[in-house]
């Protein structure tokens, strides 16, 4: 505007003064609801306008805005009616069908993208919803997000630490023992069973472990680089047979198919965390049989027997 000012007054012959005033009204009514008196006051005190504008002129401007496609709402307040632009032809509108489609694509990404990309997608959609002022889009993202209740900075830090496999100490709210510090080598974030986990090598138990993201309160310390080879981990090779699967088995990174039979496949898992593998094997129910090692096979049998006992009184 300064380019059009000479001797502290605007040289109106260089701009469309009325056009400029209507643009200012457009911005004002987009920001918040205003009464006619407030609009008058705005023009009176504006450093470039300094002009008394009648209610009639404001009405004419508003009618013009409506004519170009603005929807102006009027709400009654004790101090008078307030006017607000609720939609305009230049905004990025997202309708209900598009929001539904966004939730679909989010679900697809949940199953396929890395957690780092998923987090970036989550952040992008939230920022976009805020930018375009779509409460509906924001609400749906908040409802479907798997990062709810976790601070963005914590997720960012965990992603960074995992990239370098850093040794870190996390403050973890353990269901068993309450809040405590846990030292681990961060290996990455993963999504499973509707939850996000931090995978790592626990330095306390010398085994691969997964920690629920929403139970991690903070990163207490980031230590010097330490590689997994520096930690002595006890691995076990478990062989199991999976039969008659119609949906396709999702092999973990530490698993491989060793034999394909007519009705089943033989899988070998190389793991340091038998607890997690046990849960996976149990989830297959009758479709799965552990073949070796004997002690793990016996552990599964013992669990099944205990389960059976619960239903024996029927």
């Amino acid at each position, binding site marked *: 505007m300064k380019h059009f000012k000479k001797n502290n007054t605007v040289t109106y012959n260089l701009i469309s003064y009325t056009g400029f005033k209507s643009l200012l009204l457009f911005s004002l009514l987009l920001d918040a609801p205003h009464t006619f008196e407030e609009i008058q006051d705005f023009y009176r005190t504006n450093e470039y306008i300094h002009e008394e504008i009648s209610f009639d002129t404001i009405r004419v*401007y508003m*009618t013009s805005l409506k004519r170009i496609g603005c929807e102006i709402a009027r709400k009654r307040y004790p101090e008078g009616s307030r006017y607000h632009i609720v939609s305009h032809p230049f905004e990025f509108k997202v309708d209900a069908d598009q929001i539904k489609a966004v939730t679909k694509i989010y679900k*697809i990404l949940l199953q396929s993208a890395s957690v780092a990309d998923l987090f970036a997608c989550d952040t992008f959609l939230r920022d976009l919803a805020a930018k375009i002022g779509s409460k509906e889009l924001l609400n749906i993202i908040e409802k479907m997000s798997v990062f709810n209740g976790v601070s963005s900075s914590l997720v960012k830090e965990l992603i960074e630490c995992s990239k370098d496999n850093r040794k870190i100490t996390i403050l973890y709210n353990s269901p068993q023992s309450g809040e405590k510090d846990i030292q681990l080598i961060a290996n990455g974030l993963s999504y499973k069973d509707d939850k996000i986990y931090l995978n790592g090598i626990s330095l306390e138990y010398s085994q691969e472990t997964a920690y629920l993201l929403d139970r991690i309160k903070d990163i207490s310390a980031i230590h010097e680089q330490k590689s997994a080879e520096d930690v002595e981990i006890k691995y076990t090779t478990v062989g199991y047979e999976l039969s008659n699967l*119609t949906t396709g088995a999702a092999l973990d990174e530490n698993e491989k198919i060793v034999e394909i039979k007519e009705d089943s496949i033989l899988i070998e898992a190389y793991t340091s965390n038998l607890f997690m593998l046990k849960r996976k094997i149990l*989830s297959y129910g009758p479709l799965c049989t552990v073949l070796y090692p004997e002690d793990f096979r016996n552990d599964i049998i013992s669990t099944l027997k205990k389960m059976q006992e619960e239903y024996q009184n029927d």
Partner: protein
Amino acid sequence: MTKRKLSEKYNDSCIRIFELIKLFARGEASFSEVIKLFANEKGEVSQISNVLLNKYMNTLKIYGIDVRKSKQTYVLHKMPFSVSLNEKELYIVGLIKNAMSLMPNGKNKKSLQNFISNLEEKYDYDTKMLSAMVAPSANYDLAFYFKKFEHQIEDCERYCQEGKPIEICYIDSEGNRVKMEAQPQEIKYHDKVVCLGVYNPASSFDFDIPVGSIIYIRTCVQNKNKSRKVYTSVVFKVKGGLAKRYKVREWESAETLDDGSLIITNKGEDIQTLFTRLFKYGECCEILSPKYLRKTMSKKIEKTLKNYNL
């Protein structure tokens, strides 16, 4: 200059400045299109039109709308309502577009395409330039299931959109052929498997049926009225260490017993997913009701033990 009767009076300059913005909002506008806005009542462009155009361009400039002229074409570089994205954000748009290209054709894909094209239309100039340079991610296996079952997924989408009752026949996770009447709900995604979510009024349960295991789907000849979805409650007990770390789902309610155990009431979870989950909990979980599900669980345990010759 005002026109029309008092209640509908509008101002030419107001209209014209916004018409000009509308033209530029498309991204590009030719000089001939733009100057037409400033033609006289007979539609003639004169020297005055050029002067007016300059005044309006100056007005837009001070309002913060950056439009640059190059070879008889005006190019919008930035305006207050345009969307500015950085490289990382454009990468995510690329990721979404990649995933979208693998979605089955249907209403959802069309809506998402509209969403993306509306978004791209709103890019400011810098974002448009940058988007041409950011290659969409190609390193992700988004095709996990879609390519193989593309047509089946499309058919399932169509059944969901039609919303008519269906007869569905499929192979369940234990290899049994199952036939049921159901109401198609939506396409769901479980651990890289695409499922058709249906509601079975006979059992009052939702079933998520893997698309690849469906043998056939027929629309029921009799157009039965949609029955209201009433779900059967499944009540189970969670004990020991699991009770402490159990995360109550959105569709569950929990009651804590004196010994720390939890009584969970679950309503509306796909029955197969629920069984898989409860089985995984081992001896820390026991189904309390309904009785027939207790029996089903007991049989499953028995069948699993038979795998070990027990």
